[in-house]
């Protein structure tokens, strides 16, 4: 029998060999002096390394109670479960938003594409808008309409401030001219940034706000939406009304100064609620010929009423400036 390999002698001394192999090695060692010498040297080497490593030990350690570790493990497990729950919740919200946006895009692909690819040229509206005939619809929608003058002369009313202005309703930031934008579907919560909250809580705007291209807005409205003559239109938003009623429409325009003014068009009751006033509450039955300014969540507002429709112009401008803007309201021009 040949001599036992060194590595096997290490394994033998480390008791890492099967019992049968150990018996074979011990038989060989009994007869082989060189292997016995090698075994003794390896045993000494092994003992020496063990002793050396024993010096590299920390002070005597006492395991902390296992209950402490169990408590830590349980606490960590609950933290992880909570984190997973939060993550799943956040993911579901993101998915829901994505699905909502996608569904809106599918339902209104034209408006979405039109706004997403809006160009500066498209955002600038021609100064001369075709004047439609004065509307002669019966004045039945607004409760205060019986007190209002008839269609032949536009009545002017003031949109009064709400008793308690909506809290934390920042005015929308001015948007750059012709900026390429997606077509967001704004939630009713965003409505607060557009106007006041209904004062008495009785009037509520359901549904969602939707962005339209200017052409889309004209097509939906049947005529050029109310706007101030001159400044480029940066945003058109609409909210579907009851069947048979024309929707609420908000046309945002940006002045050279960066200020954004909004012209709102819609049924008197809806617009009043949007501005935080009761329909007819601020109607001046004497119908002053000049617009009267009020304060809303959007800043100053001047409202122009025509039949059952109301056309407030809002913006953070001095009342004189707003009054000057009002004179350029295309609808006012075409009914005079």
């Amino acid at each position: 029998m040949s001599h036992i390999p060194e590595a096997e002698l290490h394994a033998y001394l480390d008791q890492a060999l099967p019992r049968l192999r150990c018996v074979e090695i011990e038989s060989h060692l009994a007869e082989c002096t060189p292997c016995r010498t090698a075994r003794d040297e390896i045993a000494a080497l092994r003992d020496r390394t063990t002793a050396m490593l024993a010096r590299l030990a920390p002070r005597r350690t006492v395991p902390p109670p296992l209950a402490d570790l169990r408590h830590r493990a349980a606490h960590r497990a609950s933290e992880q479960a909570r984190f997973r729950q939060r993550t799943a919740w956040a993911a579901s919200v993101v998915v829901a938003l994505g699905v909502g946006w996608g569904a809106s895009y599918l339902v209104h692909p034209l408006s979405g594409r039109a706004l997403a690819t809006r160009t500066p040229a498209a955002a600038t509206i021609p100064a001369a808008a075709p004047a439609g005939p004065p509307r002669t619809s019966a004045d039945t929608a607004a409760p205060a309409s019986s007190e209002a003058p008839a269609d032949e002369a536009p009545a002017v009313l003031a949109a009064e401030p709400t008793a308690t202005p909506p809290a934390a309703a920042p005015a929308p930031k001015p948007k750059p001219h012709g900026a390429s934008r997606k077509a967001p579907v704004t939630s009713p919560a965003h409505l607060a940034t557009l106007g006041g909250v209904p004062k008495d809580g009785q009037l509520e705007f359901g549904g969602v706000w939707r962005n339209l291209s200017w052409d889309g807005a004209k097509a939906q409205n049947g005529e050029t939406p109310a706007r101030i003559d001159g400044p480029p239109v940066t945003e058109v938003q609409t909210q579907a009304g009851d069947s048979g009623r024309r929707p609420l429409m908000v046309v945002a325009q940006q002045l050279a100064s960066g200020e954004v003014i909004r012209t709102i068009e819609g049924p008197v009751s809806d617009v009043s609620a949007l501005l935080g006033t009761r329909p007819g509450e601020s109607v001046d039955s004497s119908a002053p010929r000049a617009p009267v300014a009020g304060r809303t969540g959007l800043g100053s507002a001047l409202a122009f009423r025509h039949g059952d429709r109301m056309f407030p112009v809002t913006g953070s401008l001095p009342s004189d400036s707003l009054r000057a803007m009002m004179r350029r309201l295309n609808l006012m021009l075409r009914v005079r």
Partner: protein
Amino acid sequence: MNDEFELLYQSTYTAVVRFLYRKVWDAERAEDLAQEVFVRALAHRPEKPRAWLFAVAANLARDEARAAVRRKRHLTLLKGDPVAQPAFEPSAEDQVERDEEIASVRDALDTLTPRDREILLLWDAGLSYPEIAAETGLALGAVGTTLARARKRLVAAHERQQTRDHVAHS
């Protein structure tokens, strides 16, 4: 199951601390990491807990080493770090001698390749050859060869170190 884990904990905790200490060279940190190892074991309930404990300990020690490098923190050798305290209070001269000996062994250990050092420490922690092979990915037959080489190199490096020290002191 709980009793089994309790038994494993009581029998292995010190070995895990020692194993970690020889990697991070900080007794308190070694204890913290050892507790972390057992907390993870409680959560995972591994099938082969003993080998698993040392595998996780080795990973934690590696992470610790990387973090230490990132912080560019220089870990001074056992300075002010209590090590296996004898029952009696050693004299200042004995303490210096002890510290020098410990530093010498540690330097010798550092001369080994990472693979040799890992296998030597796993063996010293009480792992069997099959467990060492499973943990390190080494063939079972190669464990003995690697251990033989590591032991010889450790002793040789230690003797060189002692010779150098002796020459320096004389």
